[in-house]
């Protein structure tokens, strides 16, 4: 029993991180119908920028987290301006290809700057272990790390902030309008470029925060970490319903807990297969995901 609960605990921590990445994917797709393949790289860059700020300036952790978000978000705005905006009216395959190209460029640039080897993420504070068995005897052996609680807490906090922005602000309303009907919104005078840029800023900012949190959790970052995490977060977004914000969160937790259970009870080498198996099953039977709505093709 406690083994199972431990896997759940680990799953919740990892799921929080996937959620922070998945939100960016889903927001951009919701508005632009674009799968930003480069999104995983923003997560990776967040980790590296965070490590740099911690090591070079010795700033407190909470400050680093706050600073990383606009830095990575700003980079995303730049990328959107250069590589995606010119192709807004091009066939869908075009921005898909540039996204892949940008992803490769970002990955390689970081690899050249920081080296391909994993490097240690500066330890910002002592991690504390809480033995759940002390309060709930039936769960003896279950351990919750303070870092796990922090990740979960920070991720939830960020998601609440995002929700507030999307639901309660003017620009949030514009984002929702664009995702419902792009052309109608444009006709109604919504400042497309500004809203799109803001969406990228938010999405990449969250992913960057995820990168800092994961660096703190595993004490390690490497240039390739964005690839797999990005693909999995994307799967989570599709599972929950791509374009639907709460869906990204639900999908992330379902995915991460499934992974933790599979790895715990069987072979670790199948961990990555879970994500893709889920992806295929979802796409075959319910491509619009758990919370999404089917698209109707009009002739």
């Amino acid at each position, binding site marked *: 029993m*406690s*083994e199972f609960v*431990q*896997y759940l605990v*680990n799953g919740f921590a*990892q799921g929080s991180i996937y959620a922070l990445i998945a939100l960016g994917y889903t927001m951009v797709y919701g508005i632009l119908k674009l799968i930003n393949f480069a999104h995983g790289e923003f997560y990776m860059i967040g980790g590296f920028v965070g490590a740099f700020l911690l090591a070079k300036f010795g700033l407190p952790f909470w400050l680093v987290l706050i600073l990383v978000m606009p830095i990575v978000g700003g980079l995303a705005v730049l990328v959107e301006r250069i590589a995606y905006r010119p192709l807004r009216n091009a066939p869908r395959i075009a921005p898909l290809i540039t996204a892949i190209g940008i992803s490769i460029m970002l990955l390689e640039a970081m690899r050249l700057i920081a080296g*391909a*080897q*994993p490097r*240690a993420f500066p*330890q910002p504070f002592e*991690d504390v*272990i809480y*033995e759940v068995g002390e309060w709930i005897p039936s769960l003896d*052996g279950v*351990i919750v*790390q303070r870092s796990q609680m922090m990740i979960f807490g920070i991720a939830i906090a960020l998601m609440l902030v995002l929700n507030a922005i999307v639901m309660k602000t003017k620009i949030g309303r514009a984002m929702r309008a664009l995702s419902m009907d792009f052309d109608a919104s444009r006709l109604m005078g919504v400042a497309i470029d500004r809203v799109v840029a803001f969406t990228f800023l938010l999405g990449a900012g969250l992913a960057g925060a995820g990168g800092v949190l994961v660096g703190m959790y*595993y*004490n*390690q970052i490497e240039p390739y970490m964005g690839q797999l995490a990005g693909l999995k977060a994307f799967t989570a977004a599709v599972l929950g319903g791509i374009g639907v914000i709460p869906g990204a969160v639900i999908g992330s937790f379902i995915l991460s807990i499934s992974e*933790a259970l599979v*790895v*715990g009870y069987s*072979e*670790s*080498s199948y*961990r990555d297969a879970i994500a893709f198996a889920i992806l295929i099953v979802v796409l075959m039977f319910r491509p619009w995901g758990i919370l999404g709505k089917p698209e109707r093709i009009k002739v």
Partner: protein
Amino acid sequence: MAKTTFKASHILSPLTLTASLFSSALALAAVPTLKVGIFLSMSGGTATFGTDTYGGMQVAIEEINKAGKIKIVPVLEDEKSEPTDSANAVKKLINVDKVNVVLGSVASSNTNAAAPIAQAAKVPLISPASTNVNVTKNGDYISRICFIDDFQGTSLAKFATEELKAKTAAVVTDSASDYSQGLAKSFKAEFEKRGGKIVAEVSYAAKDQDFSSQLTRIRTRNPSVIFAPGYYTEIGNMMRQAKRLKVKAPFLGGDGWSSSKLTELAGDGIEGHFYSAHFSHQDTDPKVQAFVTAYQAKFKSAPSDMAALGYDSVKFLADAFARNKFKTDGAGLKAAINSTANFSGVTGNITLDKDRNATKPLVIISTNKAGGSFKQRVQP
């Protein structure tokens, strides 16, 4: 201007004189040359294996070339800790650089990928440090100067039961590594033969970073020792996470841990574990100390066992070259290599048996923040 009569002999005779002088000088100066292809992991997950081994090789090459009796021309290829790049590297060394002999690599999966190519091309390949038993099964052109995992696994099981008094063990293997799988197998066999019980078997994939699930599983089973025959990059991480998750049992591993990076990656989790290696720089044997001094002078740090094996592999090869009367033919070199007996190296006395493996002692190192201390020597 005065007219000078130009006679052919004016050119010819001084020319032939110079030519004959030159050629005789060259003949005297021409040393037997051996072109050696080297494939090692200079980058990637097991990068220190490559850089350390090559460091040792360079010390040996410099000593040999300076002595002047033969000349070794090395050609180095980085196999990036990947089996695919290992196969490509050896293909290139053999087909494009046309080397006489190939040295490498350290990780057994990488050597296993390249060995069939060398065997098919009839070019001798000597591995300095690949311990998985299958490596030399690729054919008679493949040999190694280190011990094999049958011996390593058995010795570690003996250490676990006799020294650590362990009755139960958990086994954690790297599913992507021939070495890890093979070593785990021989450990398990001997451990169970001695009455021990394996209470958990988990695995991870190379490049994995999160071991919380595996460690959780191990913690619930509560073994006396955790046998983790993997490579230093993952093991270092695992140790750090194990400490955080309050996993109490010590880790036990093989020569795959042998790297200065292990201490760095494990952080606080480095204390109290044990692993087997080919060599300890604390060995007081004068030959060993001479090598340690030479290595330290060049690289400003103590040599690891990989460096020592690199050094020995080159000297071993030079010795075989001499016994083949300095001829560079593949078949002759192969015969000379395979018949080596009692070659005295810094990692011990090397004699190749009929399977082209070496029977040598191993050392057990205990881990600590200072980089490890010598604990015990185990004779074959």
